[in-house]
């Protein structure tokens, strides 16, 4: 039966092909591994013909704790104000990484949401070609008059408004546990430059069992933002501005790295490398550490801790040397061009910039309004102080780590440098070169 043998041989060849295909399939999965599916994300409402019965889909990353509570308050306030149905979809995990990935997938697949939470400033360049204009929203609502000038500047790209701010966190903060600093005999309000800071850390180290400065290094972002605060505090606003504008003074960058290294080499905890922000905040709350540098979302964690009161148990001031500054951060909503629901999305953005939205969202979030005309009676003592500093600050430099100062790719490059050279051992020369290269035009 020669014919049968032939057909068997052929079958074997088919099986070969099939197995090769299957094996390649396995390999192919690993090649594409982790590119997620990016969410199918609903169909974002059908058309923006009038506000009645319209729907707007909004993506954000506030999935837990203060953020989730603030998000709920925001939704409730919007539902009171508007007939538009709001699909307020949280995409959590990995900081904002999952949100960014979902937004990136949907924008590149021409399936944009009505609006999404992100950072304005230089970060807008990431979305070049994908954002629409909200000039009309800013003009009709008079946002340019009710917001600080920096907000007006940072929400534009090439002279066109692309987003609306909801709230602001401050980056240049020093928080402390009152009991620990008292035990060490340190008066935090007198710490106004880096040498006083080092002296205070030294006093904590010798006088108490607490960690002088708790620093969460499981991510690199905390170190990048600490470096930015040190840079502002020791080298001043001009050196910082030159740095972010692409003409860094190498000596200033290096000096800031030396000061940062001095803190990280001597005064942080042994487990810092695997410590995350929650753990780091708990060190302050439990009295295991004296000081921390963080954005003032940390104040939200302290406010929520039971029996841990502002001024009695924990204190806050500007990071040493930055007393006349407020390092700006914005939580904003961006407006995709080619919008599935232009009218409803703009209605949402009108609301985001309004007093109703900002007073609903910011107190639970632990941030302050970006408007200057908001009644602050709903805000706690700490936030009222922060809002006063916000209005009185002489300089409001944009945050380096949270999208405002440099484009996202530069920000990632800075974090690569921190990961490679500055997670212990602290290589000041290499880190300086890396930072200078990363921002230089």
């Amino acid at each position, binding site marked *: 039966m020669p014919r049968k043998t032939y057909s068997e041989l052929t079958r074997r060849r088919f099986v070969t092909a099939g197995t090769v295909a299957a094996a390649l399939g396995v390999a192919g999965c690993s090649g594409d*591994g*982790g590119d997620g599916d990016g969410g199918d994300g609903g169909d974002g409402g059908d058309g923006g013909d009038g506000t009645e019965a319209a729907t707007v889909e909004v993506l954000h990353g506030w999935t837990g704790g203060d953020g989730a509570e603030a998000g709920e308050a925001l939704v409730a306030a919007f539902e009171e104000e508007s007939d538009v149905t709001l699909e307020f979809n949280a995409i959590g995990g990995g900081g904002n*990484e999952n949100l960014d990935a979902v937004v990136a997938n949907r924008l590149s697949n021409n399936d944009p949401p009505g609006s999404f939470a992100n950072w304005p400033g230089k970060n807008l360049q990431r979305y070049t070609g994908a954002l629409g204009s909200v000039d009309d929203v800013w003009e009709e609502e008079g946002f340019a008059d009710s917001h600080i000038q920096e907000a007006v500047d940072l929400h534009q790209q090439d002279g066109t408004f692309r987003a609306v701010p909801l709230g602001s966190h401050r980056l240049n903060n020093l928080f402390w546990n009152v009991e620990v600093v008292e035990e060490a005999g340190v008066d935090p309000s007198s710490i106004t430059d880096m040498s006083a800071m080092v002296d205070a850390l030294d006093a904590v180290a010798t006088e108490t069992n607490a960690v002088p400065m708790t620093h969460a290094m499981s991510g690199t972002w905390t170190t990048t933002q600490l470096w930015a605060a040190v840079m502002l505090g020791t080298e001043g606003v001009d050196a910082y501005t030159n740095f972010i504008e692409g003409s860094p003074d190498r000596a200033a960058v290096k000096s800031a790295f030396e000061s940062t290294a001095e803190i990280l080499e001597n005064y942080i905890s042994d487990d810092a490398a695997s410590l995350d922000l929650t753990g780091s905040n708990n060190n302050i709350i439990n009295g295991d550490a004296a000081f921390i540098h963080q954005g003032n979302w940390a104040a939200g964690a302290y406010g929520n801790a039971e029996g841990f009161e502002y001024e009695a148990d924990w204190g806050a001031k500007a990071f040493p040397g930055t007393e006349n500054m407020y390092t700006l951060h914005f939580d904003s909503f961006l407006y995709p061009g080619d919008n599935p629901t232009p009218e409803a999305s703009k209605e949402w953005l009108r609301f985001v910039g309004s007093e109703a939205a900002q007073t609903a969202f910011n107190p639970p979030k632990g941030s302050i309004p970006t408007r200057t005309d908001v009644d602050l009676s709903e805000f706690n003592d700490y936030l009222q102080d922060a809002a006063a500093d916000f209005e009185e600050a002489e300089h409001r430099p944009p945050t380096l780590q949270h999208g405002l100062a440099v484009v996202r790719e530069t920000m990632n490059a800075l974090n690569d440098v921190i990961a490679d050279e500055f997670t212990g051992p602290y290589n000041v020369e290499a880190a300086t070169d890396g930072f200078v290269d990363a921002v230089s035009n």
Partner: protein
Amino acid sequence: MRDILRTVRRRLTHDDPSTDGGTITEQRPSPGATQRVRDRLGDRFGSDFVESLPFWLPTFLLMGLFVYGAIIWNLLISLTDYQGFVQPDYTNLDLEMYAQAFTDSSVVSASVNTFLLLIAFTLATLAVGLGLAILVDRHIRFENTFRTIYLLPMSLSFVVTAQFWLWMYNFNNGVVNILLGVVGLGPVDWLGNQSVVLWAVVFALMWQFSGYAMVVYLAGLRAIPTEHYEAAKVDGASTLKMYWRVIVPQLKGSTISASVVLMVFALKAFDFLYSLVSGYRPPAGSDILATKMVREAYSNLNWAYGSAIAIMLFAMALSIIGPYLVYQFRRGNL
């Protein structure tokens, strides 16, 4: 199509026309164009080709589109300069992204880490798996229970095991450092120390997959006839020598198939690293190509560059799978 279905039905009911041609001849259509094509295909690929089409063609097309189509598209994107949300320009293709990758120090170090992880993880897992398999095969009591216990980690998701090990590697109160403390070894910063972290990850992955290697080896051991053990004993071999000289050499097939699966898993360690830090940037010193690829694509929106890294990773996977397939084909197992 109706032709094909009729053929299928005929085959399914074992109604073979060749033995009983009387009535069938009426139904047989005159050799039209389709028939000629069928005949020609039959001559080329064998008589079953057309008849078997309904069974494999749909899967073949779906696989072709969603796996190979996607790979080819990915390759195409890696040749463009696609970045951000401006649509890619397919008219100007070049290898610039690959050139950039070969000179990018972070890609180079990620590749080195990927190789180290791949080799260390595979060797360690095979060694532990073999050891466990031999122990379990010694006709111990509660053999099945032990087998289940060893295999259990394999059934857990990377997300779960990453969280386990995150706690166990904790500097202050992780169980690993507590155990080391008992024997007087100072606490090690497993995930924070750049020179240790990769080996900590390898160890955790080995813990998860050695059960799988054990099962493969156990099947191999069971296939070896008892005569071989007895003959070795009769010739006066010690237990150690018996395994080393007689038994382990016969496990070549198990070793090869287990290592291929393990190596492909090693390339996919992304899930584990992602869950460990819940982000795209793994602890310093443990960056691998998969995490680098995702960071380039989704943090920097450098789609083309990310695709180029993906293709490199794909080539690595092929270089593992390819020789295995050739080996199996030569042995006539395909």
